[in-house]
């Protein structure tokens, strides 16, 4: 039955370089064009103007534009256009100097601290914090006070001040990947630390570091202009900042003077930031994990032609005569796509749950079982919505109900137990307050009453010390305890219907057995209807009365639990049951039993 040939692999995905994708991004392209022109104009300044940017003449004091001097003159009678173009050289070079120093210190420090940890990590992280504690401009002013007005020196110091920007980024990326399994795999493959950093870590750091560079360059250029604007810069070289200073001093006499350097400075900073953002957008777009396609099924057999199977009731299910709580008919669920289309993940699902019945929804990942469960609660993730069918609960179609009506139904009538116990508790609030708050709303009881009830519930779900758990924060209890807390929360308002989404998947098998037992007891006590979502046939066998098998968003077989296990008719259900290993043949002995194994068994 099980064939060893793997699934067909999907057609090769399109991969284009970041640069090419930036060229196709309008914002990225515009920014790059502007920056290229700016760099070219700075390099080829002598070709653009023949005027010396520092040549002053008193008779041209704030003189208007004229032939050869398209933007007129400043307060020292210097040509504004020439100064603007030449200033680009100093502003860009100063910014680059700061950038290079920041990047070299930050990247190397971040790599070493993140990869080796230890004392170097503590020291450098503390230093980074120290550098970030002081406003850069204040440090630059202090440096200026003792070292005098040198643009290169102040930009070098600023580079050091900016290095935490790279350090923190690289450090975060390295610590994120250093515990990745592929780093361990590379180590087991025999790679040296150097090769691991070069091959696996630098590649992760590269893109964010480039993005950060654009941001840092913008900041460096801005702060340098700010320093010069304060009149603390080197007055002998033309920079946009000194031009701003001159313009501001003469703002009443010649308002246009301040416009040109402001404009070019604002455009440069904007272009750098927008370029960084465009790069980030493009990277995020390509890094978005594509939805895993259910390749398993296509590999074995195409089941889509096989009609769905429905088994008749057996004696046990016929004995379930509680009133119909939930009746789902032809439910479809879809997600809106960026291109405006809708991707349907649940197709025409129908099922019925009576009071006192446990209905299992079983399927592999991507089968739509959890989507079905969430749509009963009307709590689908962003973008998801019910596209068709009806969910009739106690005579009301939930698919059509308003949010306000749903708020009254959720918790009180329909409750939910999630899969992952830890992430489903809010880590900022105590366990107790997360139990009390919903009860006060659903049951309209006082805080005191709710607290009393919460403590009773905690003890009822088998928590040994309810008061301690009530006061604890979620991170202070174990996963099994957290799941009991979530179950206590779900049953706190005595719901009629319970939606349990893989309630034991994240738990150890001995804890799972206890939780299953707890669920069985509570279900009987409260006579609830239960929709149990799971991928584990053992859990289904343990708890369920009826089962619906789902695959690719459809119910392909449904019926009493014994019919599914003993007389499955749909080939997909059969293939799933065949893949179960429980009670299968053991591997057996490799060679004749050795005395060694048996003697060692007892003592260790």
């Amino acid at each position, binding site marked *: 039955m099980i064939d060893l040939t*793997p699934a067909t692999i999907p057609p090769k995905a399109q991969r284009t370089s970041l640069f090419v994708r930036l060229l196709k991004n309008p914002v990225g392209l515009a920014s790059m064009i502007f920056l290229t022109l700016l760099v070219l104009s700075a390099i080829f300044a002598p070709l653009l103007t023949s005027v010396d940017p520092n040549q002053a003449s008193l008779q041209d004091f704030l003189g208007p534009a004229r032939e050869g001097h398209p933007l007129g003159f400043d307060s020292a009678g210097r040509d504004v256009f020439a100064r603007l173009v030449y200033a680009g050289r100093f502003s860009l070079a100063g910014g680059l100097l700061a950038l290079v120093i920041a990047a070299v210190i930050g990247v190397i420090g971040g790599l070493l601290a993140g990869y080796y940890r230890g004392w170097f990590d503590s020291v450098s992280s503390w230093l980074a914090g120290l550098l970030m504690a002081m406003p850069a401009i204040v440090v630059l002013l202090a440096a200026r006070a003792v070292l005098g007005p040198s643009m290169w020196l102040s930009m070098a110091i600023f580079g050091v001040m900016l290095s935490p920007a790279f350090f923190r980024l690289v450090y975060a990326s390295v610590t994120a990947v250093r515990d990745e399994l*592929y780093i361990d795999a590379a180590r087991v493959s025999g790679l040296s630390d150097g090769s691991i950093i070069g091959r696996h870590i630098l590649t992760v750091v590269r893109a964010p570091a480039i993005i950060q560079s654009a941001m840092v360059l913008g900041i460096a250029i801005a702060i340098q202009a700010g320093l010069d604007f304060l009149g603390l810069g080197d007055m002998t070289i033309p920079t946009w900042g000194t031009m701003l200073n001159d313009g501001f001093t003469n703002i009443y006499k010649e308002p246009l003077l301040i416009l040109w350097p402001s404009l070019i400075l604002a455009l440069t900073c904007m272009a750098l930031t927008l370029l960084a953002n465009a790069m980030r957008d493009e990277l995020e777009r390509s890094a978005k994990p594509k939805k895993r396609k259910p390749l398993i099924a296509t590999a074995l057999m195409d089941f889509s032609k096989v009609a769905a199977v429905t088994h008749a009731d057996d004696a046990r299910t016929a004995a379930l005569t509680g009133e119909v709580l939930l009746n789902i008919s032809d439910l479809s669920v879809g997600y809106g796509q960026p291109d405006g289309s809708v991707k349907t993940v649940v197709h025409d699902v129908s099922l019925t749950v009576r009071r006192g019945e446990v209905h299992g929804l079983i399927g592999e990942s991507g089968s739509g079982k959890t989507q079905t469960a969430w749509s009963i609660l009307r709590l689908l993730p962003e973008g998801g919505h019910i596209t068709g069918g009806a969910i009739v609960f106690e005579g009301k179609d939930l698919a059509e109900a308003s949010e306000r009506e749903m708020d009254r139904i959720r918790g009180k009538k329909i409750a939910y137990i999630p899969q992952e116990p830890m992430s489903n508790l809010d880590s900022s609030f105590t366990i107790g307050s997360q139990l009390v708050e919903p009860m006060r709303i659903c049951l309209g009881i006082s805080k005191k009453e709710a607290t009393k009830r919460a403590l009773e519930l905690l003890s009822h779900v088998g928590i040994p010390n309810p008061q301690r758990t009530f006061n604890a924060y979620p991170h202070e209890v174990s996963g099994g305890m957290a799941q009991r807390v979530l179950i206590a929360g779900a049953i706190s308002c005595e719901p009629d219907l319970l939606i349990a989404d893989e309630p034991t998947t994240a738990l150890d*098998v001995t804890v799972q057995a206890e939780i299953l037992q707890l669920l069985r007891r509570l279900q009987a006590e409260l006579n609830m209807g239960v929709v149990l979502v799971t991928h584990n046939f053992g859990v289904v066998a*343990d708890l369920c009365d009826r089962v619906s098998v789902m695959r690719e968003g459809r119910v392909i077989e449904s019926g009493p639990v014994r019919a599914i296990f003993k007389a499955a008719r749909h080939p997909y259900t059969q293939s799933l049951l065949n893949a179960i290993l429980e009670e*299968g043949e053991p591997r057996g002995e490799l060679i004749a039993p050795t005395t060694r194994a048996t003697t060692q068994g007892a003592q*260790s």
Partner: protein
Amino acid sequence: MTEPLLDVKNVIVEYPVKGFRKDPFRALKGVSLDIRPGETVGLVGESGSGKTTLGRAVLGLAPVTGGEILYKGKDIAHLGRRERRSLSSDIQVVFQDPYTSLNPSLTIEQILVEPLTMRKIEGKAAARRVADLLDQVGLPSDAGDRLPREFSGGQRQRIAIARALALDPALIVCDEPVSALDLSTQARVLDLFKEIQERTGVAYLFVSHDLAVVRHLSHRVAVMFHGEIVEWGDGDQVTSAPTHPYTQRLFLAAPVPDPDRQEVRRADRDRLLAEQKAQGLQAGATA
């Protein structure tokens, strides 16, 4: 009688605990087992039992503070980085999560070539080897220039297996290699493991929380609990008629995929728990 390939003797692993003068956390409290050439030894336990730590200790990724790990008679527990690296062609690994065990920005070929460069296999020879490896794990040869994200979980795990096989190791540590996979994918990947072992004679240290998976693949099984091996012996015996109270609990806790037999097992479990409680054996069993 065959000499063991790997002999783990009384191994202790301790992790330092953050904070002033705190006692280190002892993840393994003196663990012993051995693996023969071509054998699969299953290592079962729940979270925190130390099963993964033992696997990592064998790989040189966990700090061994006591005991020894003999590989072909030579202690490998305290090797320097350089000596450890030369062991890479003998002991390899397949990790649990096929999504994080492959570098997302490298192509499959780059991933598979990585271990080969250690043996100075380059150029055409490396390309031939990569094609051969892909074939061995049942992937088409044009898979080489794809990125990991273009593959499903099961296919990625095949790639991870191919990487482990690249240097013809004598032992592969498999750390929960199928627990992230869907049921039907899991069965096929397990069969691939079996088939490779029968063909190449590689030995596995197979770490899993799932008794059924371990039973399916292992010749001998060790059960771990709180950093110790509590039961160790023939696979069939340990997984169907366990003698240690913890293993008995573990065995009866896993639900059987059959409603009627599960009813019986549930009753058996209740009875066992009652008995053990009466004997005061149930320490550490509650969640």
